[in-house]
């Protein structure tokens, strides 16, 4: 049904209204097969609503969407057969064992007994759930619950899996392990649609989009986003200055001509500098002021920088259009 060159998800001008409130406002993006697509945005910005529209849980108020080549408006059931979905709170039956939870979802998708058995073995192998098969889901820790939920979502071998905040409330080790698992599966051609709050997770995605109050304001690979002119104006570059007294450095940096902006990040200061001022000149300038000896190195903007920059530009534009 789905031709191989079709994108995994194609969303065009999606709109979803709840009464007078527009939760999703003209959202378009495309996810290619095999990508790990990170969908970011603050709480209440419409992330979960978009997922619900793409999975057929919420009807579209406007726009079109095709998931795995299937029109969401026309055949939401067809879509549901071809995707996996793991919701925010790992919707498991806590009074059922690990095996029983898996078996239930396998049967829901109509797996034959032989195929179910084969898939159970594969998933247990992949997720390492082996020692817990006869434990009730209620007895599992957060990380294991999440693995079980992921297992339930992929029993029927979907080529596209939606993960709605899969790492919320999970310890760092389990978080790292989940991402390792996602990369492994992605290498086998499975596409992931992941929402998250963690910027380090966003950095790991092959494609990210940032939604801000119903509007997508950034869409591309992390590297492409870093090079956006809004983020890195032509004729500028970023450096990181590490020194013992960062507040002191910040105060000085702001007085040096050629430095456009400076912000503290932990033990260092990130500054945006004109091309005309090179690293040696900067180091010299700092020494001149109060004999600051600093370690200076060039820096690519983080995705957090990108989103902060784009959000403030977006707000400014909105303000301007209103005025």
């Amino acid at each position, binding site marked *: 049904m789905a031709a191989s060159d079709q994108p995994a998800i194609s969303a065009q001008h999606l709109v979803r209204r709840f009464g007078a409130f527009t939760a999703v406002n003209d959202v378009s993006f495309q996810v290619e097969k095999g990508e790990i697509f990170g969908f970011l945005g603050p709480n209440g910005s419409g992330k979960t609503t978009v997922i619900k529209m793409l999975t057929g849980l*919420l009807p579209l108020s406007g726009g079109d969407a095709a998931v795995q080549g299937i029109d969401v408006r026309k055949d939401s059931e067809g879509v549901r*057969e071809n995707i996996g979905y793991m919701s*925010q709170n790992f919707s498991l*039956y806590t009074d059922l064992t690990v095996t029983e939870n898996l*078996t*239930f979802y396998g049967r*829901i998708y109509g797996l034959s007994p032989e195929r179910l058995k084969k898939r159970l073995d594969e998933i247990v192998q992949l997720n390492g759930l082996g020692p817990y098969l006869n434990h009730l889901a209620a007895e599992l820790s957060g990380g294991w619950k999440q693995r079980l939920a992921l297992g339930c979502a992929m029993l029927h071998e979907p080529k596209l899996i939606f993960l709605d905040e899969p790492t919320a409330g999970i310890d760092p080790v389990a978080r790292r392990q989940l991402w390792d698992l996602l990369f492994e599966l992605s290498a086998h051609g499975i596409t992931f649609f992941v929402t998250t709050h963690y910027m380090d997770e966003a950095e790991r995605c092959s494609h990210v989009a940032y939604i801000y109050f119903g509007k997508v304001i950034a869409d591309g690979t992390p590297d492409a986003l870093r090079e956006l002119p809004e983020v890195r104006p032509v004729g500028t570059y970023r450096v990181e200055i590490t020194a013992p007294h960062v507040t002191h450095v910040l105060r000085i940096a702001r007085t040096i001509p050629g430095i456009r902006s400076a912000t503290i990040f932990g033990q260092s200061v990130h500054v945006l500098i004109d091309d005309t001022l090179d690293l040696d000149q900067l180091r010299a300038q700092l020494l001149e002021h109060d004999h600051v000896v600093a370690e200076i190195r060039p820096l690519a903007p983080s995705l957090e920088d990108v989103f902060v920059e784009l959000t403030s530009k977006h707000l400014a534009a909105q303000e301007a259009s209103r005025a």
Partner: protein
Amino acid sequence: MRDLFRGFSAVFYKEALHVRRDFSTLFFSLIIPILQMFLLGFAIDTNIRQINTVVFNADGRRESRELLDRLKNSDTFHLVRYVNNDRDLNDAIISGSCRVGIKIPVDYSDHLLHKTGAQVLVLIDGSDSSVAGQAINVTTAIGLDESLRRVLANSSAAFAVDMRPKILFNPDSRSPNFFLPGLLAVLLLNVTTFLTAFSIVREKERGTLEQLFVTPVRPMGLLLGKLLPYLFIGFWELLMLLFAMRFIFQVPIHGSVLLLAFLSLPYLFVSLSLGILISSKATSQANAMQLAFITILPSIFFSGYIFPRETMPKFFYILSYFVPAAYYINITRGIILRGAGWVHLWSDALVLFLMGTVLLIIAARRFQNKVIMA
């Protein structure tokens, strides 16, 4: 067609596991109706007997004592107090300690002797209409009988008209025989509606319902998968209640037990569907409980379980046609008391089956349109 019920066997499997895991809760929810049957079955007697009665016998001669003996032997009156003046007679009734007061005047025997028509005053507390009705009937009958006996004493003529009432099906007018088949319907409704009323709202609270909606499971598959395990449980409950009714309360079953069991299925289906519909509307388990209680009261009052449907005002009589328990009580009383068969009861069963189907379709439509998610 198979597609319409997609996911049914998976949901059935899962629900059966839930039931097995939480067996103790289930066990108690099945035991409670049995206890209720014991409590209500022993406590409620719809026949009015042994009404507390106060007597002021101003005459005191043989004829007056004979009259009192007749009242006593009727089994309707229990002569608990004897007083010597009108005021005490009144007070006994006003205080509520006695329902009926009998005053035999000083000249009772004299009037009998001279055939000038003796009078006896019967005071009846009207605050309970059924007690008052019974007291009027019995005292009037005794008076009439006593008069006839005296009029006919000297002639050999027979009674001109002799009415011989014969009560069919429950000749001794035993209360349990009449009462328990109705109670059966109410208890079954109670337990089954609650069983399913929690089933969907629980998943809503846990968030698993949303997960289910992203799978290809169809609404009817989901609902029937949830309903069927509880149909078995409801059926088991029915058998336990029938057993208690037959062997502990000694209510004879005149018709076919097999037919009764079979015709109970549509009723269980209706009440389980009702629970499912409640569950799809409810926002929380507490909310589901409230809604379930609301549906139970009409089943008690408009089903004919306590008050006969025929004597209700027109509006409520029509309303009673929408109460599933009304049809089922006709089935239980029909088979248990009147020995009715398939030909008499198939229409009631059909109506129940249709009601259940309609309720389930309404619930399924709510899922189809994802009203639940909003």
